[in-house]
């Protein structure tokens, strides 16, 4: 290069104003309260979940104090996790959807639909003829198909996710009522029920399923290209699109994954109750969204955490458990639940912002990206 640029002496960092404060000290030992240290590596994720862990431990203490031995019992811990499994698996799927900046209001209804479709006389007859796996397969296929439709409406129909999944929420419930004729369908197949109610290494099967789904989801979100795309699209859909990511195809996959999780949750629901009914999963969408948001996933997208979601689900499950053990009214439990949602989110915000003054202001002033997810062509 034989270029000559008289301005090159101005390249020193002094002209590079916004950098000066942090560029002068060595990067590994930043001085003052600058934001460099808390933004890197593992500590960040720990810090992000700190509010949740505190809330979780607080509840454990309350449980021990109020219910004593009955709460500390190992079996009780497994009960808490078992009861969290259905909502937990739904919430894990919802975490992916919300991370893209979307929402899925249809999960509760789709759970009802999947439970009904998987327990019709025809499906059960087929299950008797071949294997109970037919019921599992049917539920998962129905869930995934509903998710696929959501994805098509959102990504290709360019309908706002809230509306598209609201429509699915209404329609799926109706379809479930039509198929079941509003009758409760009892599962006669003992193979499936025995399997779901069995234990491996003294740990109930539902806990295993929940744990495996959580681990797979964590890997998917944090360690795969699928997860990277999910976060990128939520963080800035336009930047993701211009970088060459197939945004619409990916959204389709994410909503389908969300539906698949609902289908699997429907199987556990069938196992727990022994029936399929159109009333299964009533208002579960709100429980799922609450767990995801309490867990620290941003509703505007761009940041998702499976660990947070699982903790969120467990907190609500433990709350129910403590109230039940103490023979307290479930209505009071709902009030507490509402309070926990607010407190946990406030704590999240505090720790996510390093506890700096003005953290609360950032909750309200964070502006969403200007371009809609569905905008443009790709």
């Amino acid at each position: 290069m034989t270029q000559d640029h008289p301005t090159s002496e101005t390249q020193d960092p002094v002209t590079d104003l916004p950098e000066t404060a942090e560029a002068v000290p060595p990067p590994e030992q930043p001085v003052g309260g600058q934001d460099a240290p808390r933004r890197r590596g593992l500590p960040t994720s720990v810090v992000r979940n700190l509010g949740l862990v505190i809330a979780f431990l607080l509840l454990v203490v309350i449980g021990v104090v109020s219910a004593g031995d009955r709460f500390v019992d190992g079996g009780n811990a497994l009960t808490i996790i078992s009861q969290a499994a259905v909502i937990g698996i739904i919430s894990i799927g919802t975490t992916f959807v919300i991370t893209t900046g979307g929402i899925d209001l249809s999960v509760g209804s789709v759970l009802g639909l999947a439970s009904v479709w998987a327990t019709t006389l025809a499906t059960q007859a087929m299950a008797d003829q071949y294997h109970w796996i037919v019921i599992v397969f049917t539920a998962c296929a129905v869930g995934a198909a509903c998710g696929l439709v959501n994805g098509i409406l959102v990504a290709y129909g360019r309908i706002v996710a809230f509306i598209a999944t609201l429509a699915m929420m209404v329609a799926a419930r109706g379809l479930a009522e039509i198929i079941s004729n509003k009758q409760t369908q009892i599962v006669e197949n003992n193979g499936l029920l025995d399997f779901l109610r069995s234990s491996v290494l003294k740990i109930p099967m539902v806990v295993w399923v929940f744990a495996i789904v959580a681990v797979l989801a964590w890997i998917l979100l944090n360690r795969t290209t699928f997860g990277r795309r999910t976060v990128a699209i939520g963080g800035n859909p336009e930047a993701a699109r211009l970088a060459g990511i197939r945004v619409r195809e990916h959204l389709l996959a994410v909503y389908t994954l969300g539906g698949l999780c609902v289908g699997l949750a429907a199987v556990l629901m069938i196992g727990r109750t022994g029936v399929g009914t159109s009333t299964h999963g009533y208002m579960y969408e709100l429980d799922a969204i609450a767990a995801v948001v309490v867990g620290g996933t941003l509703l505007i997208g761009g940041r998702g955490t499976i660990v947070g979601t699982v903790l969120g689900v467990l907190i609500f499950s433990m709350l129910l458990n403590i109230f039940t053990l103490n023979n307290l009214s479930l209505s009071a439990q709902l009030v507490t639940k509402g309070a926990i949602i607010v407190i946990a989110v406030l704590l999240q915000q505090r720790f996510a912002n390093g506890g700096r003054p003005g953290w609360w202001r950032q909750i309200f002033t964070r502006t969403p990206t200007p371009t809609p997810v569905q905008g443009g062509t790709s």
Partner: protein
Amino acid sequence: MVTADPFLTMHGIVKHFPGAKALDGVDLDVRAGEVHCVLGQNGAGKSTLIKVLSGAHGHDAGAIRIDGEEVTLATPAAALRAGIATMYQELDVVAGLTVAENIFLGNERSVAGLTRRQDAAHAARDLLVRLGHPEISPHAEVGTLSAAGQQVVSMARALSRDARLLIMDEPSAVLDSEEVDNLFRVVRDLTASGIAVIYISHRLEEIRRIGDRITVLKDGRTVASGLEVAQTSTRELITLMTGRTREYAFARREVPAEAQDVLQVVDLAVDGLFSGVDLTVRAGQIVGLAGLVGAGRSEILETIAGARRRTAGTVTVDGVALPPGSVPRAVAAGVGLCPEERKSQGLILDEPIFKNLTLSSFAGFARGGFLREHAERAATATQMQNLQLRPADPDRAIRTLSGGNQQKVMLGRWLEHGCRVLLLDEPTRGVDVGARAEIYDLIGQLADSGTAIVVVSSEIPEVLALADTVLVVAEGRIVHTGPATEIDEHRVLDLVMDSDALAEGHR
């Protein structure tokens, strides 16, 4: 009724944003009863200036005086109390409320918390009559009005606050020519009653019709203030807006004549935006698109990159035709776009540098769908060294970088992905002087390594200095193609203005 004493004086206004200096010494004085036009390219700082004046942003240095007394406009309410009302480009009316409710929004006429609807309706009618629009009913729902009608409502609201200074941000953008005439009549009525108006527009012919004096902004600075409209030529204004603020020293590069064509664009068009665009870029060549804002330059780049669906023409990279409207296919063929709005279109601000830098290539690092972040980090660190991006810490939040360093990350993204064609839209907007020289160097190095480069810039000298071949774009057409050595800034301006005049004649 223009008085000599300024109503408003701004001196040395500075406003920082993280990573950029939006205002860097703005001076402005506005007299009562005048229409003061503020001119400048996109990104020159006009909107930030408005936001400072309307109390939406505070400023970091400098002084604002009203009637000679220093004031602080900490909140929009404070600005309103000081007599400054703003009509934003995106009209801030509430579609579901009536005209009267909109006019007195935030300033409701009420007794004990109950709104006095009749009172408000009467007052609204008086204001509408004063603005020359007695036909608008105070009871009409604002959503049912035309854009011009909504603008009148917005203006009536400003008047209802007894504004002494009215800021109008591109008010004509939503109006047809008849409505513009009416707007100008209203503006003259207002100034005749002693109200000062700050008028912001891209359209020079409007400024000629309505303006009294002009202040020109560039790169967040005032480059000319208080110019009398009658004594300033259009050419002078364009030169002030687009001209050099510093010398561009960039050694002329030799492009091997026998280099192969990499990018071939033939008869490219998008309905309503541009048409008939022909463009050939050889390996190692830099082609510059010069022209004014709105000429269609960015849209041409976006269409080549597949981000817009073309309605005619072909785009070929290394002999392979690209399908219309597919960014992934263009990226796979080696076309990279560094978009104009870096923050909203290019970067994921909450993610670290390495995830931004590998946004187009992370799948290439992965094995069987599993990310290999250590490899991404290592590659990012290497790229950061190439790009002279210090400190070379791939985990640093991209939000904390300066504009110049963010732009380097964008360049690094396409370097890492490996690109044959690099499309740069305003590559030095919001970039400091020192970093600009580095970015010019990087662009030169990329070209030397055989990349075909297309540069768009609003600064004509920058295009002329960087590019080997210059295309002048005006009104969605290419009006000139030729070597950069055979054209100068004046010739470009002539071409731009001639075709604008031609287009005016056709209307």
